[in-house]
């Protein structure tokens, strides 16, 4: 295989693994995985923290 092809495969695997891992990490932290960010979220903050759940 040409070197570029090896690079491609490695890159693909890296991307997929990185995305999956960060998704799991986010979930463990309790953050919602929206495409929006916390403070930049349009209209309102969507970050969930356990304490702020409705009493």
């Amino acid at each position: 295989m040409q070197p570029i092809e090896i690079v491609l495969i490695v890159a693909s695997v890296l991307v997929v693994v990185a995305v999956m891992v960060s998704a799991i990490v986010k979930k463990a932290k309790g953050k919602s995985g929206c495409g929006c960010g916390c403070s930049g979220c349009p209209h309102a903050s969507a970050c969930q923290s356990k304490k702020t759940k409705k009493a």
Partner: protein
Amino acid sequence: MMKFALAGNPNSGKTTLFNGLTGSTAHVGNWPGVTVDKKEGVYKKCAEPISIVDLPGIYSLSPYTPEEVISRNFILDEKPDCVINIIDATNLERNLYLSTQILEIDVPMVIALNMIDEVEKSGDVLDAKKLEEKIGVPVVEISALKGRGLDELMTRAYEASRTPRKGRTVLDGTSIVHLIGDCKIALEGQKVDNALFHAVKLVELDELEVKMHPDSAFMVEEFKKTFEDDTFGTDFDAIIADARYKYITKNCSPALVKKVRSADAPSRSDKIDKVLTHKFWGIPIFLLILFALFHLTFSENLLFLGAALPEGWVALEGTALEGVFGDGGINSPGVVLFNLLDLATSSLGEAIAGAMEAGGVSEWAIGLVCDGMLGGVFAVLSFLPQILLLFLFFSILEDSGYMARVAFILDRIFRKFGLSGRAFMPMIMGFGCSVPAMVNTRTLADEKERIATIRVIPFFSCGAKLPILTAIAGGIGLTFGLPHTDLITYGMYVVGIVVAICAVLIMRSTTMKGEVPPFIMELPTYHLPQFKNLMLHLWDKAKHFVQKAFTIILASTIVIWFISHFSWGWNYLPDEQINESILAGVGRLLQPLFTPLGFGSQIGSFGWVFVVAAITGLIAKENVIATFGTLAGCITAGFVADEALEGIDAVASMIGATEIGVPALIAFIVFNMLTIPCFAAVATAKAELGKKRFNMTLVFWVVTSYVVASMFYLIGEWWWTVFIFVAVWAMVITLVILNKQGKINLDVLNPKNVIAKIKTLKK
């Protein structure tokens, strides 16, 4: 790190102040209820860094909505080092009501008199020193918008935070001050913090308080029996509220000297409202604005000028930009930008493919890059301008204060569905992203209203669903030669709204039955949206979208490419053999499930792509089109076209190759639009609803999307089925109405009751 909390009425400028102090870009909107969770940032200009927390706006510490509970609990439980109470100086009296309550808590406090520039502009004079003397806590004039007075505010807040402050009440001198004193002593005996605050709340018979301190509540009840006030009887609520405002008007209002002006002179907001909430024109204007919004984003015949234009004028035939600006009609800005991006990404894709071929790279590698990586992401990227446009329009509407007026106008209609006009806000937010919309429902006091609203928010097609609506509508146009595909797009949005209305109606008559929630809301003054703010948020949104595309979507399409190019025996398959891949196998397995919707077993060859795309939509709705993009590249290369097709042409070609019909395509759009939203929205719904209700919601989403989509397909293919559906729906509606009128009881159908019944039978 020291912690300061920003508390104040909605729309008093807390978030603007927060942004000014922390340099962050937390969003600012202009209707009550934008910040519904706390936001934190850091102020760095003091001797030590200070954490600033922006709390949701509240009118009082007697919680009426979940968001008000958040603020109250934060101040009481998190014990900030100082509370900065922001007051809208143009609205002094009502804002001070909250202040008198914060005063009762044992926490250092500083009052920020915001919008002082507007007070000065109007010619009124406000004596901050006088206010400070009367109220007993530092009062600082600021203009959060202009950045004025912020440093002084923080200096005084910092000073104040270093000395503990004992709560004091403005209710001294009222008939019940002794009762409050007795309660306070009792609570202090129980080692309760903020005894004075809790004592006052107990006497008010605040629900949260009564739950927490039942014995003291009992003591209050006993006292009530021996007490009698002339004006209010034993109505402690009224006594206290009245006492607070009396204090305010006596001691604080004199600090504000209003310029002599005709009391009835209409303000600028009044003048604008004359038009926008006009008795006859109010609703038509709103509908027109909504239509204009969508028209500018999706239309292919801007202002319907198509017929008036000379032939081929806009089409730029033969040039590289052929068709970009229009073909038979002028394209709207949204469509022009889409075309440009589609052109750019397609060209880029072709160039890369060409370069790789020239470099002698193997076919599979070219496939991986052009289809697996670029094909998916580029398919979605082209929609960024339209998503941004919609977002921009809705932001302007919200920032200006118009949204509150729309809630005001629509309340009467919403009432018929068992909701209040207030529910309109989160729904409109749903057109941007379902997640913040669901969180925003915390501004709804009525729990059932809240649940019903959360459930239908996904039906208001979010930005991520926009590619599905547009691409498939476009695909329909290209494959079947139908003009005016933008009408299909509009139509789909309308379908979402209609289904939401019907769903709410049914819910409010059955499982979410309850009183119509009250509608008491402030109408904020109109503000011109700040250009800088708007642009910052647009940029932020664009950044996140591109980020999402190159991470989640890219990863998804890579995976899709791989499993569509390997057989069950782990042999590599070239494009032509895609039908034997694992992905195709899985797709074909699930296909029969979707037969009533038109994209099940009835379409042979590549029909499985629809099922597969729908499933990838669970991760992120953009994936539906991304998956199409990836697979289209492979399928058209392997089967259909002579030359490699790119972008939307490839998708259209693939759709044509599946031999699917128009009704089924519409059903496909509808299904994806209404079904379970992306993981993020699902997680948010789960957090907001609680596990039990959430599970029912999942079922609700699946059933609704399945039924409505199948309706479109069946009626579309065999028009006479409409009679069957009408009959069924008529029956359902009759049952619902009868249930509402109490003539029959549908509670027997409620799953909870069914389970309970089964349990009792088992015993």
